[in-house]
C-alpha cells in the first residue's frame, strides 16, 4: 500500500471520528439522521479505498451493501419514521455539550490506548484506524446512554454498528461475505422492528421520551 492510500484511509477515519463528535453534540433529530448518512458515506469511501489498495474484490460488494443500507435505506426509513411520528423538529434539551465533548475526548484517549498493543500487529493499513473505530463505538455508546429520546438512541445504536464495520474493514480487510450479509440483514430487520416498536411506544405513552420507560425498578 502506498503512503498516499494510507493517508486517504486516515482521512476517512478522521471524518468518521469528527462525525461521531458532531453526533454527540447534535440536539436536532433531523440533523442527526443526516450526520448518520454522511458517516455511512465516509465508511463507503474508506471501504472502497481499502478494496482498491489491497485488491480485495469482495470489499467492493461490502461497500455497495453499506451504501445501499446506511446511506440510502436506513436514513430514508428514519426520515419517514420521524415524519410519521411527528418528531421531525424535536430538540433534545437535556444534554450538556461541553461535558459530552470532554468525556468524548477521554474515550478517544482510552480507545487508542486499548488498541495500541493490537495495532502493532496490523500489517500495512494505517495504524490508528483500529483505535478510531473503537473510539467511534464507545462514543456511540455514550450517546445512547445520555439521550432520553427513542430516535437518537436508535441512531446511536446504528452509529455503533458503523464503528464496528470500520473496525472490520480497517483491521482485517472485511469479514467473510456471508457474515457481512448476515450482519446487514440483522441491522435492517432490527431497524424495521424498532420502527414498529416506536409506534407501539407512542400509542401507549403519547410520546417518545424514554423517561416514561423507567417504571420497572428494583423495590
Amino acid at each position, binding site marked *: 500500500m502506498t503512503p498516499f492510500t494510507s493517508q486517504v484511509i486516515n482521512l476517512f477515519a478522521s471524518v468518521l471520528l469528527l462525525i461521531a463528535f458532531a453526533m454527540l453534540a447534535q440536539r436536532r433529530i433531523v440533523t442527526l439522521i443526516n450526520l448518520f448518512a454522511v458517516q455511512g458515506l465516509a465508511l463507503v469511501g474508506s471501504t472502497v479505498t481499502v478494496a482498491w489498495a489491497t485488491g*480485495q474484490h469482495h470489499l467492493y460488494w461490502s461497500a455497495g451493501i453499506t451504501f445501499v443500507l446506511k446511506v440510502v435505506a436506513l436514513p430514508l426509513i428514519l426520515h419517514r419514521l420521524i415524519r410519521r411520528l411527528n418528531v421531525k423538529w424535536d430538540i433534545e434539551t437535556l444534554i450538556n455539550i461541553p461535558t459530552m465533548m470532554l468525556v468524548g475526548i477521554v474515550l478517544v484517549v482510552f480507545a487508542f490506548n*486499548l488498541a495500541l*498493543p*493490537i495495532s502493532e*500487529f496490523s500489517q500495512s493499513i494505517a495504524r490508528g484506524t483500529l483505535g478510531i473505530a*473503537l473510539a467511534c*463505538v464507545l462514543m456511540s*455508546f455514550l450517546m*445512547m446512554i445520555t439521550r432520553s429520546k*427513542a430516535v437518537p*438512541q436508535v441512531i446511536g*445504536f446504528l452509529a*455503533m*454498528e458503523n464503528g*464496528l464495520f470500520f*473496525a*472490520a474493514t480497517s*483491521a*482485517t*480487510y472485511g*469479514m*467473510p*461475505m*456471508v*457474515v457481512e450479509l*448476515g*450482519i446487514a*440483514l*440483522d441491522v435492517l*430487520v*432490527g431497524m424495521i*422492528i*424498532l420502527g*414498529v*416498536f416506536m409506534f*407501539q*411506544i407512542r*400509542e*401507549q*405513552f403519547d410520546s417518545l421520551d*424514554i423517561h*416514561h*420507560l*423507567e*417504571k*420497572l425498578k*428494583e*423495590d
Partner: protein
Amino acid sequence: MEAFIALLAIPLFGGPFLWLWGDRPSAPEVNAGFSLATFAASAWLTAEVISGGPITAFGEQFFIDALNVFLVALTAFVGFTTSLFSRPYMRIERDKGKMTGPRLRLYHSMYQAFMATMLLALTTNNLGILWVAMEAATLATVLLVSVYRTAASLEAAWKYFILCGVGIAQALFGTILLYFAAERVLGAEGNALLWTHLNLVKADLEPAIMSLAFVFLLVGYGTKIGLVPLHNWLPDAHAEGPTPISAVLSGLLLNVALYSVIRCKVLADGALESRFAGNMMMGFGLLSVVVAAFFLSRQRDVKRMFAYSSIEHMGLVTFAFGMAGPIANFAGLLHMTVHSLVKSAIFFAVGHAAQKAGTQVMEDIRGLVKVSPTVGWGLMIGTLAILGMPPFGVFASEFLILTTAMREHPWATPFLLLALGVAFAAVFSRVQPMVFGDTHMKPLAHQPALVPVFVHLGLGLLLGLYIPPYLAAWYQEAARLLG
C-alpha cells in the same frame, strides 16, 4: 446430513407458514406440530452423531459434535414441550382479552423463528454466523416480550432490545478481533472464522489480540447470559413477556449464549496458555451467583423471582466452566441440562398459577394445592428441585461444582454456600404459602397442560438418580472437548 437439514429447515419454514396460516383455531396445534417435527429431526441427528461421530455440512459451515448435539436435542425438546404448554395457556390469555388474533399470529410465527435462530447458533461452525444468529434471536423475541402492549411490557422489551443490542455489539467487536488474529495464521480466506479450523491452530493465535477479543466476547455474550452486572434486562423481560416465552428465554436462550462463550473460551485457552479466560468466567460467575441470591429475597413478582434464580444458576454454570477440568465441565453441562428442564417446568406451573390468581404478585397467590393440586405440586416439586434438594439432578451438579470448588478454589466455597443458602431461604419461604394456605380462587376455563411440567421434573429427577451410560459418555466427551 438429511437430519441436519430437516432440523434447520422445519422451524425456518414454520415461521412464515404460521404467519400465512394466520389466526385460525388450529394455529397452536400447527405450532406444536412443527416443534414436534423439529424435535424428531434433532433426535435423528443425535442418533447419527452418537453412532458416527462429529459431522460437518455445507462446506464445513456447520459442525455438530458431542458438545452442541446435546444442546440441540435439549433445545428442540424444551421447544416442543413449551409449544404444548402454550396451547391452553394462550387460549386462556385470549379469553381474558390479553391476546388477540393478530398478536397470536405474530406469537406463533416468531416462536418458530426464534427456535430456528437458536438451532442455527448452536450448529453453525462460523463464529460470525454465530453472532448473526444470536442477534437474530434477540430480534425474534423482542416483539414477543412486548406482545401484551402494556406500559411495563413495552419498557421491558425496549430495555431488552437496547441492552442486548449494545451487549452483542461488543461481541461483534470481539469476533472482529478474533478474525484479525485468525487471519494472520489462516489467511484472509472464508474459513478463518470456522471454529474447527481455529481449533486446530489455536496455539498459534496471537495472545495479545486473543485476550482482548475474549474480554469483548465474554462481555457481549455475557449480556445475553444475564451475568451480573449486565443482567438488567433479564428480570424485566421474563416478568413482562408471556410465560411460554419466559420459559424458553430462561431454559434455552441463556444456554445458547453460554454455549457461544465456551466455544470462544476453548480458543482463548489454547492461545493464551494461562488461566485468564477461566478466571474471568469464574469472577463473573461468582458475582452473578451472589448478587442474584440477594436480589431473590427482595422480589414480589413470582416470575421476576424465578428470573433472578436463572441468573444465579447461569452464574453457577459460568463459574463451573471457568474452573475447567473434566469434573467441573461435566457438572456444568449437567447443570445446564437440569436447569433448563426444571426452570421451564417451574415457569409452566407459575404461568397457570398466575392465570388463576389473576396476578403475578406472590402475596396474592395462595393455596394452589386446594384449587388445582397438579399446579400446586408441580410448583412445589419444581421449586425444591431448582433449590438443589436431593435427589434431583440440580443437587448432583451443584454437589460436583461445590466439591470441585473446595478442592481447587477453596476461597470461593463460602461465597457459593452462602449464596445457595440465601437463595433457598428466599425462594422457599415465598413459594410455600403460595402452594399451601387458604384461597378463594376459581378453576381455569381451559384444562391446563401439566404433562410437560411432570415430564420435565421426572427427567430432572432421573438425572439426579441415574445418568444413562450413553448420556454420561456423551457429557464426558463434551467435557473433554472443553479441556
